[in-house]
């Protein structure tokens, strides 16, 4: 089990890639962001970006799934209090393959809740041409290692 103490500032990870199909772009946007440039290829040609592009929320949700899929080892993850900043830098298009990197940029124990730690991680998302499409800086809460857990016994043995 990965606890707060196992996470350090500077920890870097590469997340598994994710393919974004036209069908998925249209299906996501039809449900959550039905603007013409996300759901209608013909109409999109006459709009600001000139072609069908993924909803930014679709790109964000794809990153959330990539983060989940990257975490093969169980984590004492207690949810997220929020996102400090998310930037949509370039459009994501049908057929794009996204990759992402993460780096822990802050880590501190909670002052109000003993036994809990907070980490801030910066995620950078790129497409197959290495174009930087999105950045997210988000907080996560983790349980601290329990004083007498079996993990600790294993670690010290």
């Amino acid at each position: 089990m990965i606890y707060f103490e196992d996470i350090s500032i500077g920890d870097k990870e590469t997340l598994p890639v994710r393919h974004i199909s036209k069908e998925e772009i249209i299906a996501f946007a039809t449900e959550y962001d039905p603007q013409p440039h996300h759901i209608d290829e013909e109409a999109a040609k006459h709009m600001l970006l000139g072609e069908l592009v993924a909803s930014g929320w679709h790109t964000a949700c794809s990153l959330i799934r990539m983060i989940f899929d990257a975490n093969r080892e169980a984590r004492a993850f207690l949810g997220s209090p929020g996102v400090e900043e998310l930037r949509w830098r370039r459009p994501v298009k049908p057929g794009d393959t996204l990759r992402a990197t993460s780096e822990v940029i802050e880590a501190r124990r909670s002052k109000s809740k003993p036994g809990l730690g907070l980490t801030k991680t910066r995620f950078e998302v790129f497409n197959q041409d290495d174009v930087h499409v999105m950045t997210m800086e988000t907080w996560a809460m983790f349980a601290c290692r329990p004083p007498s857990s079996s993990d600790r016994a294993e670690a010290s043995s």
Partner: protein
Amino acid sequence: MKMIYFEDIELGLREELGSYTFTAEDIIQFASEWDPQVFHTDPEAAKDSIFGGLVASGWHVNVIWMKLIVASRLNRMRKEGFRMAGGVSPGFKDMKWLVPVRPGDTLTYFSTSAAKVDLKSRPEFGILQSHNEAVNQDGVTVMTFTGQAYMRKRPKE
């Protein structure tokens, strides 16, 4: 058709975007696809989590904001006969998930025009910042964030 430009936006206007009830089925379906943490997908396992029961993914709460703002804007544009000159977003800031959203909760979403930012790099555009909130059936604010949208400035005569 009347075009609404950056200059036409009045600051401080609070718009009600609509309401949405989160069912357990809906919470599980969204999270299974995008954010499959056990406290979002498994009502039994969620009882032993920090939340003490199933809660909606924060990203689910976010995308419903998008769904409602698109519906509300399209409705108003149709009814009042105008178009917004812009709307593409460079991203958001300070997203805070303040209170868990549980099955049966009904959230009402609000968006308030909060600030206008000029762009040195693209003088024909400005950024409109909005303050956004989701409030549950008990009047408790469960989510807030600062949204941003590019708006075209009124073309020079």
